[in-house]
C-alpha cells in the first residue's frame, strides 16, 4: 500500500466520505467536510496512522494531496534515519 493509498483511507475516514477517490492533484477544496475544524482532526489522524509529528499549520500551507504525501514520506524517512 502506498502512502497515497493510506492517505486516501485516512481522508475517507476523517471526513466521512466513503466514496472519495484521492489523487495527488486533489486539494482540500475538492473534499467535502475538509473545513478548518476538521483539518485539526485530519492531522491528528495522520499522526496516529503514520506515527510521525506533523503541525496543523504546515499541512494548511500545502497546495495539494501530493505535497501532503511527500511531507508524510519525508517525516517517515526522517524517523527511520538514525541520530
Amino acid at each position, binding site marked *: 500500500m502506498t502512502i497515497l493509498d493510506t492517505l486516501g483511507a485516512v481522508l475517507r475516514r476523517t471526513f*466521512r466520505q466513503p466514496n472519495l477517490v484521492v489523487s495527488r492533484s*486533489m486539494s482540500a477544496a*475538492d473534499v*467535502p*467536510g475538509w473545513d478548518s*475544524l476538521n483539518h485539526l482532526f485530519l492531522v491528528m489522524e495522520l499522526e496516529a496512522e503514520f506515527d510521525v509529528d506533523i503541525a496543523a499549520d504546515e499541512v494548511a500551507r500545502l497546495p495539494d494531496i501530493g505535497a501532503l504525501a511527500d511531507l508524510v514520506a519525508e517525516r517517515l524517512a526522517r524517523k527511520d534515519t538514525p541520530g
Partner: protein
Amino acid sequence: MTACGNRFLERLAGILAADPELPFVYLRQNDAYLTVTRSELAGRMGAHAAAWRAAGVGEGDVVFIILRHGADAMPAFLAAMWIGAVPSFLPFPNPRQDLALYREVHATVLRRTGAKALMAEPDLAAEFLNLLGPQATAVLAPPAVGCTALLPPPAAIAEEGAALLQHSSGTTGLKKGVVLSYRAVLAQLDAYAPTLGLDPRSCVASWLPLYHDMGLIACFLLPSVSGVPIVALDPFEWALKPQLLLEAIGRFRATHVWMPNFAFAHLTRGVPRNERYDLSSVAMLIGSSETNRGHTQDRFLARFGSHGLRAGTLQTSYGMAETVFAVSQSQRGVEPRRIGIRIENACVFPGDTELLSNGKPLAGVEIKVLHGGRMRSEERIVGELCVASPFNFSGYLGSGGTPDRFHRTGDIGFLDEGEVFVLGRIKDLIIVNGRNIYAHDVEAAVNDVPGIHPGRCIALGVASDRTGSEEIVVIGETSAPSPDLVAAVNRAVLAHFGMPCAAVELVPPGWLVKTTSGKVSRERNHQKYLIRAAHADATP
C-alpha cells in the same frame, strides 16, 4: 467624568480615564500576548479617530472595518463610535474563499449601504479602491503602527441614534445590516450584566470573531464599558489549536467565556490529552448562537471536569443580533434545567426527547409564541418565538419603516416554567459553527455548477452529533455523476461561503421530492436524506 449626553460613550470615557495603566486587552499574536492598556487603547483610538475624520467621516456615517485579528480592530471600531459614526465589522476573507467573489459581494454591500468609508488591511484596501473607484466610499488602511493621538471628547450622539450595525451572513442582496441604537445597546448591557456577576476580578476570554454578535457584544463591548479585561485569540489559530483557549483561561484567570455549541465539541475532541489546564477561575462558560445540546456539554464536562471546571459553570443563553445579543440567560452557578418532552398538536407533554433550557428571559424581555396566527402567552405551546424587549433593533439598514414590537425570530420553541426552549427554525437558515448561512444562497451557488440540473438541487442543514453543530449537505440532480462534479460543487460552496459542504450527494434526475406547486420541498427532502443516510449507516 466626560459628559456628552450619551451614557455608552461616557462609560467608555470613564473606563479609559480611570486606572489608565490597567490592561484593556491581552491580544494573542505571533505566538505571544501583547498587553494593551487602557491608555494605550485611548492613544490608538485617537489615531483612528483622526484617520476616520481625515476620510471625511462624521456623525451618522456608516463605516465598515475589515481587519485581521490584531491590535487595530477594537480601537478602529471604538474610535468610529467615539466620533459619532456607525461602525460595522465585516469578516476578513477566509484564505479558501474566492477573493474576487468576496470583493464583489462586499463592494455591493458598501455601495448599497451608502458607506462613507471602509478601513481594511493595506493589500485589501488597495483592491477595494480599484473595485469601487473614486466614489462615495473612502477606502483607508489603519494608521501607521505605533501612531497615537490625543483622543478628543466623544461626540454628543443622542442615545436614540444608531450606534452600530451587525450583519447577517447572507450573500448578495441578503447581507442585511441590523441597526442598533445606543439606547438598545445600553439596555442590553444593563439587563445582561447583572446576570453575569461581573466584578473587578472578572476577565473575558474569547476566540470569537468580532463580526459575530456574541464576539462583538458579549466579548468586546460589554467588557469594554464594564472595565473587564479581554483575552483575545485569533479565531483561525484557535481552530487549529483549540487548547489555546484553555491555556489563556489558566494564564489570565479568565472568568467568563462565550462560545457556540460546536466549540464545546471541538475542544472536547481537539485538545491534546496529555496537557493539564487550570480552569478553576471560570465562573460562566456560556453556550449560545446555535442550539445548545445537553450531551455536548456533558462530554465537555466529563473531559475537563478534572481540570478544575465545575458543573454549574456550564451555562446557556439565547440571543440574536436583532436583540443586540442575549434574550435569556441561565442562572449563574446552577446547571441549566433539562426536560424530556414529546410534542402533539403543538402542545408539549412529558416524553423522551431531552432539551436544554436557555434560561429565563432577561429583565424587560417579553416572549410570546406565534401559533395558528395568534400570539400566545401560554406555556408549553410550540410556535415561532417572538421577542419584545428594550433592546430590539431599529430595523434593517435601508429597509425603511419601524420593526414590529415583537420581533419574529424564525426560531421554533416554547416556554416552560418561564424558561426558553428552542426546538429548531422555520427560516431556511443553516447555522454552521455559529455562522448563519441561508440555504437558498447555497442553492444559488450550486445551480451555477455545470453538470447540476438547473433548479434541481437543495441545501440542507443536518444536525451533527460529532461536530455539535449543523452541517451543510447539498443534494444535486445530475445525469453525469462523477468525483469531479462532487469536487466542483464543494468548490462552489467554499468559494461563496469560505466553508465546504459536509457532504455532496449526486442523485439521478427526479430524485428530489417536489411540492404540489412544483417547488423542491426542503422538509420532505430532508426527511428523505435522513432515511437514506440511516439506511447507509445500517448497511454493512
